[in-house]
């Protein structure tokens, strides 16, 4: 126990002690964004089930295989956006990881090592982003990652030009096509990682620091939080998850090209925002983002089952994003008077 000030107790203390025990306000509890998301998700599942005879049993689980790769990136993107930053280079990072893994494997590296290399490349890309963002405070992360986005994909193109590379061992497909019992392996991995990331964000000291930094970076620095170190860690983590996404995506396709994962960054950011994480930083949680992954994923899958054309699907997804943000702006939160500069 540290030496604590033993100040005289003053008389006019009016702090309610009873709140220490329980502070669950039912009204507040149910007026949360997550509930709206849960309702949307349930509605989508019900509609999916009722309009299509094929949306039954294991199909519900199987469907997740189609969007889990983005899910991995969402987990880390929540941290990035909570900081009030953004990373639009993740799609390119995933492409670079995937291409380098394929090249390494075809150059004779064992598959296991190639997979590690894939994650390591992601880690490296993320680390470079992190360093640049931490060291160049004058520049918004949007600009820096815009540049690295072009560069990372550029490297992927230089390496593989217009070729495809693949020929991975049969077992590598297990990542995205295999099952553990009835549960797809990718879904299982996602759940495990989601729990880890959820705990990290909501229960750990690090998570608390992330929220503090997102709310007020100056205060955080003055309060002794290692702001730069944390930023670098988070962007590195983001890169690592882009690497993980590359693993699962490549496994799903059994071959790779420099143009894979194009536009993933926007999908991922959209999911995080739909999940109620504010791009101004400091507000939102992991659960919402995870729900949003399933909402967008199942919506797309459900629309696909009834053979809705891609054009209409784009419009529906766009309207969903805008409608939900509008709803969160006007139904749940009082609108902020003015955006923070």
């Amino acid at each position, binding site marked *: 126990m540290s030496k604590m000030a033993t100040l005289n107790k003053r008389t006019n203390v009016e702090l309610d002690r009873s709140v220490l025990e329980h502070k669950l306000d039912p009204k507040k509890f149910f007026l949360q964004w997550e509930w709206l998301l849960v309702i949307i998700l349930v509605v989508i599942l019900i509609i999916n089930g009722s309009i299509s005879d094929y949306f039954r049993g294991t199909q519900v689980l*199987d469907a997740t295989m189609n969007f889990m790769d983005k899910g991995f990136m969402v987990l880390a993107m929540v941290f990035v956006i909570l900081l009030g930053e953004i990373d639009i280079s993740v799609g390119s990072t995933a492409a670079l990881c995937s291409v380098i893994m394929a090249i390494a494997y075809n150059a004779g590296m064992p598959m296991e090592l190639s997979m590690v290399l894939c994650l390591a490349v992601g880690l490296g890309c993320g680390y470079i982003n992190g360093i640049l963002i931490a060291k160049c405070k004058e520049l918004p992360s949007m600009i820096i990652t815009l540049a690295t986005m072009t560069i990372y994909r550029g490297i992927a193109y230089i390496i593989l030009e217009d070729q495809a590379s693949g020929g991975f061992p049969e077992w590598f497909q297990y990542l995205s096509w295999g099952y553990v019992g009835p549960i797809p392996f990718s879904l299982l991995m996602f759940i495990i990682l989601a729990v880890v990331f959820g705990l990290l964000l909501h229960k750990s000291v690090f998570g608390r620091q992330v929220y503090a930094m997102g709310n007020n970076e100056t205060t955080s620095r003055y309060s002794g939080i290692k702001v730069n170190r944390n930023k670098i860690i988070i962007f590195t983590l983001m890169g690592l998850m882009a690497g993980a996404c590359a693993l699962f995506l490549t496994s799903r396709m059994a*071959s790779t*090209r420099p143009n894979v994962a194009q536009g993933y960054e926007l999908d991922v950011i959209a999911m995080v925002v739909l999940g109620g994480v504010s791009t101004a930083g400091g507000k939102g949680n992991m659960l919402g983002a995870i729900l949003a992954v399933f909402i967008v994923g199942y919506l797309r899958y459900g629309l696909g089952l009834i053979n809705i054309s891609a*054009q209409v699907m784009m419009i529906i997804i766009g309207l969903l994003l805008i*409608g939900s943000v509008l709803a969160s702006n006007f139904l749940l939160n009082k609108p902020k008077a003015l955006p923070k500069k």
Partner: protein
Amino acid sequence: MKKWMTVVCLLIVAAFVFAACAPAAETASQVPESSTESGEASAESSTEASAGTETTGSGKHAIVFKNTGNPYGEKEMEGFENAVKEAGQEAILRAPDQPTAEGQIQIIEELIAQGVDSITVVANDPDALQPALTKAMQAGIKVIAVDSGVNAQSRELFVNQAGSELFFFFKQKTAYEMCSGSGEFAILSATSQATNQNAWIEALQKIMESDEKYKDMELVKVAYGDDLRDKSVSETEALLQSYPDLKCIVAPTTVGIAAAGKVLTDKNLGGKVALTGLGLPSEMAEYIDNGVCEYMFLWNPLDLGYLAGYTAMALTDGTITGATGDKFEAGTLGEYTVVDASDGGTEIILGPPFRFDSSNIAEWKDVY
């Protein structure tokens, strides 16, 4: 103001929920004219699905094109649909919004879940679809590749627009004629998206080395226009700047040839630099009429899709198994035979591409 914003929000949310529900209601009523299936098929489909996928006969056949919004693809899908409809069966036409393998995989998964009888793909990548297509074949679904193929392991049959040798013969002779046997020529290609193009270019270079006839011709550059208009234009302009003696541009891509046609027209180079390749008649009509492009080629996508449709149905009902030597009747196109493909699988060859020039372009420009 807050109040009406709330109302607007609610409306938007409601609209989106309806948007998600509405197609469900529509599929039953609207489908016949919405080009997805024939009249009674929708009723059949639900009963059939519950009966399982083993049922052959009047089944559901799906085609997955590279991406949406491509008129060539629309025609190919239309041809496919015509064939399937003729036989009174149900056709499903799908395409992802981006020309990526990821998008196609998801669609294939959805089709597997729907228990279709056959899937015909125009692949964005020859290998990337393998796991998805293998899964489909394991589920008893017949898999056919058309136009832009997949590797031999992930298909049962490839409907090829033309045997490669045939194509080179045509193209090579064309370039030869247009350069009158000597001089510089360049290729303006797309990039990786099209599986077939790189194979063509490679084999072309081989032929040029081996055949004496082409010794005076020089391939100066293979430029890549990424199938983007602006980039194709920049690349064409750079070709013209860098190689003032250029005699001919060969563009085996529909976007590239049209962009090059536009540049040559704007620069009044018609007659000085010849242009040929693969192009859509509708896109190229202008440049064939004004003489920039004397003639160019393309398969009839309607026929290609049509043949693919009959192939899919023949495979499903057991008329053919995909083995070499199998024969079947493809509607108005007549009889086709399955032959060995160069990659170890089997294929059906549509026939030589169609040659478009000023004499026939008028009748085709409004078709596709």
